[in-house]
């Protein structure tokens, strides 16, 4: 009988992964890397499901992970297509350069 990893430690690992992903999204400017970080966050969430499924010996956790995996694949497909399109338009994949949809430039004339 293999010794069970305590649920606290494995959840801490999932949280750590989620944190790494979040920090990646926040500090990266390259949109492809930002998307990879999002994938990490998704995997962290999926891992939390698996940990919960194993803790209560239920199959639901793994079912959810399959769902998340499928969704992540679809998201990457759509996301990469959008990034490709953006690169054609802007000749760049720097997220900080794409701030056209702001409300700062024509400030404070509304009443």
């Amino acid at each position, binding site marked *: 009988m293999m010794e069970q990893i305590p649920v606290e430690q494995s959840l801490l690992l999932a949280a750590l992964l989620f944190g790494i992903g979040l920090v990646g999204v926040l500090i990266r400017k390259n949109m492809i890397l*930002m998307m990879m970080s999002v994938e990490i966050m998704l995997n962290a969430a999926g891992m939390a499901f698996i940990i919960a499924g194993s803790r209560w010996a239920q199959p639901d956790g793994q079912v959810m992970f399959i769902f998340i995996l499928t969704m992540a694949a679809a998201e990457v497909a759509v996301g990469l297509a959008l990034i490709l399109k953006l690169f054609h338009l802007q000749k760049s994949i720097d*997220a900080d350069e794409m701030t056209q*949809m*702001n409300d*700062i430039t024509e400030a404070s004339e*509304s009443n």
Partner: protein
Amino acid sequence: MMRYLWLVPVMPLLGFLVLAFFGRNLRKSIITLIGTGTVGLSALLVILIGIEFLTSPPAGNAFTLKLWTWMSSGGLSPSIAFYLDGLSLAFIFVVTFVGFLIHVYSSEYMRDDEGFARFLAFMNLFVSAMLILVLADNLALMYLGWEGVGLCSFLLIGFWYKESANAAAARKAFIVTRVGDTAMALGLFLLITEFNTLDIRSILETAPAHWTPGSAKVVWIAFLLLGGAVGKSAQLPLQTWLPDAMAGPSPVSALIHAATMVTAGVYLIARNHVVFELAPIAMKTVAIVGASTLLIAGFAAVVQYDIKRVLAYSTISQIGYMFLALGVGAWSAGIFHFMIHAFFKALLFLGAGAVIHALHHEQNIFKMGGLRKEMPVIFWTFLAGSGALAALPLVTAGFYSKDAILWYSWSSEKGSLFLWAAAFLGAFITSIYTFRMVFITFWGKMKTHIHLRPGRAMLIPLVVLAVLSIIGGFLETPHNLGHITLFSGMLSGVLPEVHILHSGAESTELILQVLTALTGFFGIYLAWHFWMKKPGFLFRLKQTRAGAALHHWWLTGWGFDWVYDLLIIRPFTWLSNINKNDIVDYISIAPSNLVVWLHNLTRRSQNGNLRWYAAGIALGLIITLTIALFL
């Protein structure tokens, strides 16, 4: 014939509608025909109805014609119904007959004015509204007519609206009478809460059983109704609008501001006489208001330059006599003076209009003069009217009507020596200012060239009114002079008899009559002496400081305008200046300002930077989780 009573106010209304909608495109002769013809037909109808009413009186000496129910709400259902009795017959006769003469006169007087059709349209509307006022069966319908005549008065004072002074006079008249009208409306509301009806007869029938004399409710109602009467009839303290109302054309002054509309207050009080008799203090107030108004306006008339302002103050003063008569319970004497006054004051205004017309819109009497030989018809008719106004004994109608008021203000149980003395002094002043005006206008040297002479359409109404001003008095004569009571006989079923306190005082009556007659002649002599024979004395008096101050004080109508300016207008404009941006509005403006402020605050967060948004989401999540976990 009485079935057709509804046609009396409807005819002028039709005239108004036709002239208002098509007057612009009609020829002047057609406009004249419609404008005067409709009122003429009304007058004819009134005369026929009057003959039938007097020869074969209907049951109860009154006739009601109910047309339809006006509205029905919460138990109150005033109807469109006309009520004819002696009192309303006297009023509709004066309104239609004198109104018709004035329409004929104005068909020439106003013919060359560009707003001829508009003028006759408003005049027709006025006649219609005035007829509704006096024929109304209930106070709601009466209030409709009451406001209708107020509207027409406003429209016609400001008829020459291109001059801002005329428009200001119109506004003043409207606003000042509005003060009274508001009081009257409150009185009507109180009556509704008391009786749940506005039907005049049911109120008058149930009132004596409903109230004990002098109880608070009836006193309140009487005073509120008096407020309406005082506003409409230009009595103290709301008399200030009438002298300014002379900005309108002369026929307007004759019809609205002398003969008919300004006596609506007299009608209101006479119509609701039961209410006033139940409130003795209100009756006393009516008499005091009348007595003080007739004196104040009389003194103001003595110093006026403008012929129409002399007549305006004289109108205020004469309506003061009517109020005095009502106040001492001499109801029919007040109504009789109304009718006679309508004849001679319309005549005087029309005569003054003819003079003004002839002298190229000159209204200053000191620039007239010497017109006696030049305009004989106008002179003689004007003299007849002036004689009636000054109550020259025996020959003029004004003597009989005014003598009755003087006698009752002394002998009625509600009368007193003070009221009689005020009326007596008023009669003396009346003869002074009347003949001052006559002497200055018609005697002496000619000062202004006559520029056009009145034609037949202007002279015939003058002659008819002059004849009425002379013979009208024989409808009602005192005990010792024939004792004819045709007029009070007509009113006997409507208005109560006056209660004489000093009974059997025929000798007193004769003494008072002789005294009044003598002072009248003395007043004429004084007018001749001071303004014709030795004008230097008054001139020197005006040079002294006190004389000049007194002259200015009376010229401005005892400074009432100044007082109201100081007490009401200045504080009001001061307050409005403070409240220019409407303080109450801030309640609704504040939320919108707050939203805009918040928007400007938070719009900075929409910087378009994806990573900021992600951080914002993360922060929000953390905050939400923290709250969910720890709170």
